[in-house]
């Protein structure tokens, strides 16, 4: 019964990865925060508000990255019917939605001092808001089915269709002229950020990634255990019925 793909291999791998990812997350986030908040110099234009960047930029990247991961594992699940891929996609969504929310929140906190308003309807901000909705729709679709195998396939189709939003977000700053600042970190010419800000930022980005991996492992494990409980309960009920019928 391959559909309930034997998860032991995944569990073993997860157990091996978990201590590292947890350690990297704790170290990088700790060091990055301290460095970024206390030791990095204030920006000559933005002053101390620039420190919001250390949360804002990593969460923005993770919001998109997690979605990309979700779309890839959905494709894998659809093509190869790989059960763990479904679970990875499912478990990623709430994490990604949270990153998106944090990005929106820190963005508007930053927007108030920088642009004088909490919110503007520029292309990047809007497409980020849309991404939050796609995450929510994806999660709602999972909830809407009782049958988990069906839910998995429906959600996978949605994740793939929704993936067209990713390039829209990424290139929104280039396609439309917006208030939001264009890419300065990942560009053709290399980073355009001063080194004193770059290093703590990179630390934070790695930390966010490791944090995602850690939480993901926990969530997928929980899903696997939940499914096991369900199967055991059903088997028990079937046995009980069979015994009753035999009497």
């Amino acid at each position, binding site marked *: 019964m391959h559909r309930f793909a034997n998860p032991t291999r995944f569990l073993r791998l997860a157990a091996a990865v978990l201590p590292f990812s947890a350690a990297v997350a704790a170290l990088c986030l700790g060091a990055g925060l301290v460095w970024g908040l206390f030791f990095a110099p204030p920006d000559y234009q933005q002053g101390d508000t620039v420190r919001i960047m250390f949360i804002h930029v990593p969460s923005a990247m993770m919001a998109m990255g997690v979605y990309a991961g979700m779309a890839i594992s959905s494709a894998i699940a659809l093509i190869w019917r790989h059960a763990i891929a479904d679970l990875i996609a499912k478990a990623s969504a709430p994490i990604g939605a949270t990153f998106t929310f944090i990005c929106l929140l820190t963005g508007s906190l930053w927007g108030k001092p920088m642009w004088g308003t909490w919110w503007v*309807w520029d292309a990047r901000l809007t497409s980020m808001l849309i991404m939050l*909705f796609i995450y*929510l729709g994806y999660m*709602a679709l999972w909830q809407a089915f009782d049958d988990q195998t069906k839910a998995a396939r429906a959600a996978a189709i949605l994740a793939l269709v929704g993936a067209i939003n990713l390039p829209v977000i990424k290139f929104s700053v280039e396609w439309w002229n917006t208030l939001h600042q264009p890419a300065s970190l990942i560009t053709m010419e290399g980073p355009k950020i001063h080194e004193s800000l770059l290093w703590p930022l990179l630390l934070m980005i790695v930390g966010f990634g490791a944090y995602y991996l850690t939480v993901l492992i926990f969530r997928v494990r929980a899903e696997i255990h939940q499914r096991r409980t369900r199967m055991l309960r059903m088997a028990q009920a079937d046995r009980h019925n069979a015994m009753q019928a035999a009497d």
Partner: protein
Amino acid sequence: MSRTFLMLIRRDLLLAHRQGGGSLLAIAFFVLVVSLFPLGVGPAPEMLERIAAGTIWVAALLSVLLSLDRMFQADLEDGSLDQLALLPIPLALVVLAKTIAHWLTTGLPLTLTAPLLGLLMQLSPDAYGALVAGMLLGTPILSLIGAIGAALTVGVRRGGVLLTLIVTPLYIPILIFGVSAVEAAAQGFAISAHMLFLSALLSGTIVIAPIAAAWSLKLALD
């Protein structure tokens, strides 16, 4: 009687919850519709401020409209409307209970979300009170009038759109008063007259709507 009444409200809340985060979806639709406007109309803040009240109210109205559809339809389709009609209490009370549940799962959450949307639409800070107060009085009226429309169109072909056509014109007075209250408040005027009007409308509809809706439902069951 009152136990049955409370039980009916609980029933509908339970169903809304079980059938998958009822209010959450209403809220999401509300936010989505509001955010369509800046996309369509353009992001200029002074422009947004001018259309803020109207857009938020129109979006709230549409969100309520969209959720009306299933108020009685689902119960008709699976036969539970028969059972509700055969409860030993007047059908109008059943309708009132369902309407209250509808408001609790749509109107109320929309009202609570509205200030956030005000922020997105650059609503002037003085106007938030009027927005929330107006919606608190106005959304129950939307649910009540909606109940009449939903009952009239239940079981009818293309009921959904027909419902919209019947109900929207009746919603217009509420829209106008709701919006003008917000605009008055933004300009520093008093809004007590608006609120008085909405309260009067609410007391009127809370009496008439359940009775009218109950009549219409009887037709659908006949």
